[in-house]
Each structure stands twice: as C-alpha cells, then as structure tokens.
C-alpha cells in the first residue's frame, strides 16, 4: 500500500495514499464532524458538516470525500471551518422539529450531540419548535417522521447499496425535498423488507421502530397473563452498548437478571429453538440431499431475507427451508410444549421475544405463523433498543445487576445456537450436526472457520462421507442478490446456502443499539459483536445442537423425530411470491 505524508494541525503523519482528509485527521487523532457520511456506503459530501481547511484548496473541502495528497496541510479546526460548520448546523436545525426531551433519540441523537459540541445557543431562522410531525407509519416496523429528517440520505444509501431494495429516495427538490418512496407511495405499498437498517443509520429521530413496549407492559401488568420472554442469540452481544459497555461485551447474565426484574413469568432463550431449527433444517437438508430435492437449501431464519426472497427472487421460494424462524418456533413451543408442561391454557400464555430485528415485527403477523388453536405463535416482539428502554424506565442500575441464568424449563442450548447471531453461524451450527449425522462419526474439529467472518459472501466445500458438500453464506441483500444471480446464471452451484437479511447477520440487525456514524465509520462493530458470540461458543461444553439434553427430551417427550408430523405442524411453514410493487397491484385491482 502506497502512503503519503500529510500534516494535520501541524502534526506530520503518514497515511494511505487513498485516504480521505477525514481519515487522515482521524489517524492523527482529530474527529471531524460528519452527518451524511457512511464509509463505503454513503460518500456524497452533502451535509457539509465536515468542511475543513486544506492549505491551497479553493475554499473549504468536504473532508469525507476529499482525497489526501502528498504534502497536504490540513487544519481541522480553523476558525473558518468552525464558523462554516456552525452556520450549516444552524441551518439544519432551523428545519428540524425540535422536541429533544420527548424524542426517542434524546441523548443518542447525532444532531443533538453536534449542537452541544458547537455550542448552539440560538437558531435565528425557521420555526423548528413550532414544526408539526410529518408521520408515515404504514408498516409494522417503522415510523418515519420527516419533520426530524435532515436529509443526510444514509437511509437511502443503506436501502440501495446494502439491501438492494432501494425503496426510498429523495422526492421533490429544493426545500421541499423529502425522503419517501416512488410517487410518494407509503412504505407499506412498496417492496420494503422491514430490515430496519435505515433506522440503524438515522442520525436523528426521523426513523424509529414501532414501539411495542407498551403492549409488553400491559401484558406484564395483566394478572391473567402468563408472560414469557425469549431472547435472540444476538441480543446478549449488544445490549450492554445501551448502558455504556464496550462494543463486543456479552451481557447475557445481566440481561437475564433485568428480564427477571421486569417481571416476566419465564425468562427463556430463543437459542433453544435455534437448536431445534438445526435439527429440523438439518433433517430437511439431508432429506433433500439424499432424495434429489430442490437444492441448494436456503435458510429461513431471517424474516428480512424471507421478504426479500418473496418479493425480489420468488424463483428461489422452493429452495427455502420450510422451517419457521427460531422466534416463531419459540412462540409455537411456548403455546404447545411449554403450556402443556405447565398445564397452562395457551390463550393465557403471552409470548414476547427480544430481537435484534425489526422484520420480526412484520413476521409475527404473517398469516402463516399460527400453530396452536388459531392463536398467533407470537404475541409481541421488541428490539434490543426497546428492551434497553424498558430497563431504563424501571430505574435498574445496569452496573449493579447480577448475572443470572435462564429459567430451566426452556433455557438449555448449545454453542451452535449462540453463533446463530453472526453471519455464517447457522451454517456452522448446521454443519456440526449434519456432518455428524451423515458420517456417523464425531467431528474432530467443531470450528468451520471458512464460513466465519464479516465478508459479504463466503464459500466453502466439505467432504462429507464421500460427498463434496458445497456451501455459501451471504449477509445483506446486496450480497444475497449477487449470490442468487450467480446461482441463477449457473455460475455457481451449492448444496446449502445461509442468507441473513442484515450485513454481518443479526449482530448488526435493524433492532440493535444505534452506533453513531463516527463509530460505524471507524470501528468494525460487526466483528466485535460477533466476537462476543464466538467466544461464548468456544467456552461452552455443549456445542452441537443434537447433543443438547433439552432438545433430545423435547423430541422424545413431545415432537417425536425431527421432521415428524407434529414437528411440521408446529415448526414449519410455507412462503409465497409477493408482488414487488404491492401498491400498483392494489391499484390494478381497484381499477
């Protein structure tokens, strides 16, 4: 890699020759404020917050996109740059509905932080405090309030560049510019996959998840309800961030303790149904492999991916595993196995999950997700962020919380289930089981490192009892689209494919704690969070789904064999193609 020497605020540094002024400044230890910039995703130089003085340049330069050059002299904090940023900030604030104290992003808002940093004492124009909300809420997962939108377009960029959906973009122009869907259709009328990546990158409160906490509070307060909660593998890897823990802290013990203190009647782990998924999906895979079934088999844990497949690649629906997602299996098992075991009326069991995911809010009301007595498998699902809000609301002192264990009725799981939360984890978990079943021998080495890591597309092949099993793993829909196109074109052939809706998998899900742009741009949060899961797996005694005693017991006592009729009733579902432009389809019907 070639380098150049530049001076940042008088300090000489050597940085990569393809670095930007922003990166060079960062290397020298100076943070330049940004709002629109997302590395590799949204490099548009639009917000003008990063304007910086470079000696000899014509005017201030946008540090986020301006390349360094040999001998460049950068002054990140000149009065001129400071004044320009402050004025731009004032303009942005003049068109941002200011209700900071009642905003869900209070104290996690990047705009608020900048206003504080730049000492904004007044906003001399516009009427930001009198602005009215401009709400769009047509999907189960997302609320957009354009009165708080600062048009940084990070959401537009992730939707298009990471998620291949491109269902939002700027409409109109000039001061009337606003983010919306084509022809100002509601989000519910376009092929949104509910992934919530847009929320994760929103610097303000313009994009938020639909709040489901009040329904959970209601259930908890209802003495007739037996309220159980299950947490997804990826939640423990991130929840601590909401309370100031370093990124990559495993907060399982405190999380369980907090859930107990919130008053849930059962605090369980969705990891258990992740293990069930491996048994069901593994069996399905072996069946397809040995009986000439549709291959590659593609995983179905991620509801964002499922929506993407149904809307964008319906030709792959036959490839999808018929397994419900672990969340839905959890709900179904709570209202069947668990209710039976405790002698509860399934109608009184209120099932909540904590998910790293906003698409789960869509999934729980899919019409194919009801296994017991016509009841929804799931009652409510909240994101990691919503759980954090519930914890804060009760005044619990996070640092003082003890470490507690999941409740025993549904709390025993494998390391294989834990790594479900990272891209490649489901594949690795499945391989640990499938290979042992097919070979009839115990695996000498449980780590399938080829499918680990945060690359968008990973490929590997394994000799399993004389058959070369080819697998691929993709996360983020742009990567998935690339992989599926290759398969479609006959350029690649696989037996088993794992696809996760969000880049990096659930650890980077749309319901995860929001990290500001200046962290996302310079810290590999995906790898750090995944690390928390892989370390837990490495330390666990049980690392294979088929060896977990609880799983064996569930099958022997209740489900019979994996893939049995009972298992199918409770744990499997089906998918159908959805129009890519549901709004237009609806119009056609009307006419």
């Amino acid at each position, binding site marked *: 890699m070639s380098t150049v020497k530049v001076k940042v605020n008088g300090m000489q540094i050597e940085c990569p020759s393809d670095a930007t002024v922003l990166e060079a400044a960062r290397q020298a230890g100076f943070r330049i404020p940004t709002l629109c910039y997302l590395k590799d995703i949204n490099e*548009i130089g639009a*917000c003008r917050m990063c304007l910086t003085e470079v000696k000899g340049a014509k005017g201030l330069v946008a540090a986020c996109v301006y390349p360094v050059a040999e001998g460049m002299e950068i002054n990140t904090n000149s009065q001129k740059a400071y004044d320009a940023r402050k004025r*731009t900030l004032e303009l942005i604030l003049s068109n941002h509905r200011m209700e900071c104290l009642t905003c869900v992003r209070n104290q996690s808002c990047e705009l608020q932080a900048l206003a504080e940093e730049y000492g904004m004492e007044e906003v001399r124009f*516009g009427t930001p405090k009198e602005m009215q909300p401009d709400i769009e809420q047509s999907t189960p997962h997302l609320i957009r309030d354009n009165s708080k939108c600062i048009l940084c377009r990070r959401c537009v960029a992730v939707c298009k560049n990471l998620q291949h959906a491109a269902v939002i*973009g700027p409409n109109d122009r*000039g001061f009337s510019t606003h983010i919306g869907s084509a022809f100002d259709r509601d989000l519910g009328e376009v092929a949104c996959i509910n992934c919530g990546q847009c929320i994760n990158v929103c610097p303000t409160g313009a994009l938020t998840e639909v709040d489901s906490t009040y329904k959970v509070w209601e259930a908890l307060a209802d003495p007739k309800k037996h309220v159980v909660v299950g947490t997804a593998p990826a939640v423990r890897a991130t929840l601590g961030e909401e309370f100031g823990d370093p990124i990559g802290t495993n907060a399982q013990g405190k999380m369980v303790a907090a859930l107990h203190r919130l008053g849930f009647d059962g605090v369980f782990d969705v990891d258990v149904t992740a293990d069930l998924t491996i048994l069901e999906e593994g069996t399905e895979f072996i069946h397809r492999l040995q009986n000439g079934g549709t291959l590659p088999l593609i995983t179905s844990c991620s509801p964002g991916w499922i929506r993407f497949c149904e809307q964008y690649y319906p030709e792959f629906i036959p490839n999808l595993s018929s397994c419900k997602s672990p969340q839905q299996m959890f709900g179904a098992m709570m209202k069947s196995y668990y209710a039976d075991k405790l002698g509860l009326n399934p109608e009184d069991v209120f099932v909540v999950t904590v998910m790293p995911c906003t698409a789960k809010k869509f999934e729980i009301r899919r019409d194919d997700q009801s296994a017991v007595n016509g009841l929804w498998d799931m009652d409510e699902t909240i994101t990691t962020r919503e759980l954090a809000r519930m914890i804060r609301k009760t005044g619990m002192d996070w640092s003082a919380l003890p470490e507690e264990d999941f409740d025993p009725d549904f709390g025993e799981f494998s390391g294989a289930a834990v790594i479900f939360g990272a891209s490649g984890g489901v594949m690795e978990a499945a391989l640990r089981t499938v290979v042992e079943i097919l070979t009839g021998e115990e695996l000498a080495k449980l780590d399938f490192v080829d499918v680990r890591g945060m690359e968008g597309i990973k490929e590997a092949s394994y000799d399993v009892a004389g058959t070369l099993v080819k697998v691929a793993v993709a996360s983020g829909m742009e990567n998935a689209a690339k992989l599926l196109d290759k398969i479609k074109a006959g350029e690649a052939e696989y037996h088993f494919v794992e696809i996760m809706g969000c880049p990096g998998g659930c650890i980077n899900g749309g319901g995860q704690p929001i990290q500001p742009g200046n962290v996302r741009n310079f810290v590999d949060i995906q790898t750090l969070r995944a690390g928390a899961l892989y370390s837990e797996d490495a330390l666990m005694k049980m690392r294979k789904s088929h060896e977990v005693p609880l799983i064996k017991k569930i099958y022997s006592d209740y489900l019979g064999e994996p893939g049995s009729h009972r298992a199918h009733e409770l744990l499997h579902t089906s998918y159908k193609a959805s129009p890519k432009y549901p709004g237009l389809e609806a119009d056609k019907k009307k006419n």
Partner: protein
Amino acid sequence: MNFVRSHVLVCGGTGCTASKSPEIIAEFNTQLKNCGLDSEVRVVQTGCFGLCALGPIVVVYPEGTYYAQIKVEDVKTIVEEHLLKGRIVQDFLFKEADAHGVEQSLNNTDFYLKQHRIALRNCGVINPEEIDEAIAFDAYKALGTCLTEKTPQEVIEIITESGLRGRGGAGFPTGIKWKFAAASPGPVKYVCCNADEGDPGAFMDRSVLEGDPHAILEAMAIAGYAIGANQGYIYIRAEYPLAVKRLKIAIEQAKEYGLIGKNILGTGFDFDLEIRLGAGAFVCGEETALMTSIEGHRGEPRPRPPFPAVKGLFQKPTILNNVETYANIAWIINNGPAAFNCMGTEKSKGTKVFALGGKIKNTGLVEIPMGTTLREVVEDIGGGCPGGKKFKAAQTGGPSGGCIPASLIDTPLDYESMAAIGSIIGSGGLIVMDEDNCIVDIAKFFLQFTMDESCGKCSPCRIGTKRMYEILDKITQGKGTLEDLDILEELALHVKENSLCGLGQTAPNPVLSTLRYFRDEYEAHVVDKKCPTGVCKGLVEYKILSDKCIGCTACARVCPVDAISGKVKEVHSIDPSLCIKCGSCIAACKFGAIIVE
C-alpha cells in the same frame, strides 16, 4: 442544378416560429408559384437572426434586404413588388430607432454593426435541416482537417492557443479541459454537450442548435478525436422541441454522409452520438449533475474530485462543453487560433453571445467580441430602455450572476472584469432593468428561481436559499430590520462558500451584488419602510386625495374587498388594513384622485 437569382431567408427560430414563420414560408412558396417565380427564387427556413424583438424576420438576398415583423398577408406584396418588380418594400423594412433613415442591409444596422458572429455564423444563413447547406458553409471541413492532417495533440494545442474558455458559465479553458481528459488513461471516454440551457432569459444555445446543429456535431467529433472518445451525448432539455428535432435530423444526415458513425471519412475514427432529454431541472446544467442524469439517476451533483476528466460519465474520463463553446471549435480550426485570440481581452478571447432581455428595445441575441462594454451592448446594440426610461441595472449570468448598477455601465464584458464587480459572464443572459424595477424584488425573483431549482442535496443550498428568501420576502413586505440585512448577507456568503455545486455557490450572487450596489434601496425598505419604485405592495399605501375626489363612488364600486367607503358626493377614503393594492380603484377613478405612496 437550377440557377436561383434570389434567396428569401425566413427565420425558423422558436420565437419567429411562434409568430407564424412556417405559414409565412408556405405563403411565399404559394405566391412565388403564382407569379411563376418558383424556379428562380428559393425560400429558405433558417435559424435565428438574433433580433427577436422584430420577428418574424425575412431577409432577401443578394440585396440583404431586412424585413421585420412580417405577417402572412405581407408576403404577397413582397413577392409582387420586390421579387417580381425589383422594388424594395420600404414599409416593411427594419427601421432603426435612431436617425439613420431607412437602412437596407442588415449588416449595417446598429444592432449588427458591433457584432462579430462566430458561434452564430450560420444562424440565419443556412437551412439547419439541410446538411448540404451546412457543408457549403464549411461544416465538417475542420473535422476533415483534424482527422487527416492533425494529431489529437495538435488539435488540443490549437484550441488551447485560441484561448477559448467555456461558454457555459465557469469559463474554464477548453484546451486545458481537453488536455486533462486526453491524458486520462482508458479505452472508453465520453464527450458530452451541455444543452440544458436553463437560465431564465437565455436562449443562445437553443438558437445555435436550431440554426446550426452541424457545428455542434462536428465539434463533438473533433473533441472525441482529440481526447480519444468514440461516443458523445448531447444532453438537451425536452422543452426545446425544435432544437431536438433539428439535432435529430442533423445526426441522421451526418450519419448518412459518413460524417458521424463508424470510420469517419475513411480514417478509421469512429464517433457516435446520442441525444439525452433532460426534464428541465436547472441543476442538470451543472456538469456532474448532468452526467448523473444521463446515467439514469436523479440529476444531482457529485463532489469533485474526482473531476469528470478523470471519472465522469459512467465513471469514465469525460469532457463536457457547452453548446456555444462547441460552436466556436470548427471556426477556430478553419481560421486558426490567431484569428480567434486576436479578439477580446488579455484573458478573455474571442466573442460571446448574449441574450438581451428585460427592459430593452432590441430584445434578442447578440454576439460581440469579449471586452465590449455593457454600455455598448445596452445603448448601441440594444437601443436602450424602452419609453425613454432610465437604465438602472443589468443582471448578467442569469440567476447565478450579479447585478451591475448604472454606475458601472462602462465595465467591459469579460470574465475578469465581471468577476471583479461581483458578477459573472455566465452563459450570457443579460437582463436589463430600468428605473421602475425594485432591486429587492429583483433579488427575490432570482433567488426564488435558484431556491426552487436547488436539488436539495446539500444543506447550505437547500436550507440557506430558503432562509434567504424568507428574509427578502419579509423585507419586501415591510417587516425587515437592519439586523435582517446582516443575517441575509451572512447567509448569502455562507451558501456561496459552502454549497456542494455551482448552483448553490452562485445562487447568492444576485443578493450579494444588490446588497453591495443598492444597499440604500434595501435600507429604504427596512428603515423608511418605503419601496422607492412602488413595486413592493407591502410597502405602498393607496390614498384618496380629498381635493380631487368628487364622491362619484366609482372606486368603491370596483374595489373587490370593500376597502373604500364614503357617501355619494363626499370624499371617499381607503381602509389600508383591507386594501390589497390591486389598482382597480386607480383605473376606475376618472379624476386622478387616487395615488400610491
């Protein structure tokens, strides 16, 4: 080939077409046939002559007789008198406003005398829909010279030496631009033409495309040869249907003749051209926005670097030049760079086309050597303000330009002199204002244009222009303060210095230049709460003079908001809180009893 003794040239530009020039042409053909002259006299539809205020224009050669404002019914007389009997029809001649008496040849009129037509050389001369006519006037000769006698390097050197600078607004040296693109490695490069002329009041590019489209095609092919590109795109706004039609015809004919396409003139050089229609967004005249639009995306600018010469259209090295810039290229090749750079000033060479508009007698297109003074253009060529009104200011460069006060009317029109006084040459719009124009209102008008046309991508332009507009609106309503003027100036400088692209960087120019030269007029609005010209309705009051009002009630009866009261035969009065200043009462009063203060 028939011998033709006379040519009748009828302007087929958009303005004259709207004034029925196609019908005039048809009538000429009918009348000539009736007189048996159809084999001796040829009627030609040409491009714009420039003097649009006097259209439709008909010129008869070989005499060069210049008939103005011709109607269909006049044609019979011209045919029977002039073409049959050889008697010029004095009544229809273009009459100079000054005391020259009746002029006969258009080149001797004040309007044309100081002009030097290079870019417009064939406009109003040839039929733009006939490639043979263009070729007769040297079209594609320069392309042939370049392809057979010059290396790409030499072509770039000629253009560099000529001193030609971009005519679209920024004035970047064309030769240098080509040199950068030529130096960018890569097998695929593009040549683009910016025909997205969007300044209110500017129509020079349209006129060139309508009048001499082959000049553009030829220049783009030359540019392609110079930088190593085989594909060109002409980005033209869909609101220019006639220009689009003629471009299409020209491309088709040039392809038929082997002057565009594969293996041009047997030299092995390929150059193809495509037209891309723009949807009329002003920002798409900005080079990176234009390219983004050609690529099929929302037309928005991209940060530079990378510059288009390195990564432009479809991420390939690209040059983009304005129509008028291209219109000079072949002339420079044919006549040599010295013939071009001997005109103009030290740093601004050649000629520039200006679109004269606003409060000026001779509205139209003029092409003058760089460095001609504003006074020469306004007074000598343009004929001054109509109705003997006093010249107050001129806005050059459209909404991105600045406002030049009467005190600076002797400033030469060239890039440097304009920049020094806070304006720009821009694409060549020149809007004249007289003493009746309110300068704050004018600044507001131009700012509203750029505010509406901002693409909305960067914060300073999107929000800053809006906030500036709000302040100007407040001032014109009489609600402004001196502090507002300071904030206005601060915001204007902020938007100018920190916006992403040229649109935002120039949008505040009308405000900044009027604040600089007409601060007293702003202060009259905010301190005295008066609009000196009476244009700002929020600052004027309608009053009834008690000594003149006879109580006829005419005013009260026409007032649409019942703001006037009074008994019959008694003096009436206007309630200022109700009055909407529509002026109906003034029109209705026969006694001059109502005044505006």
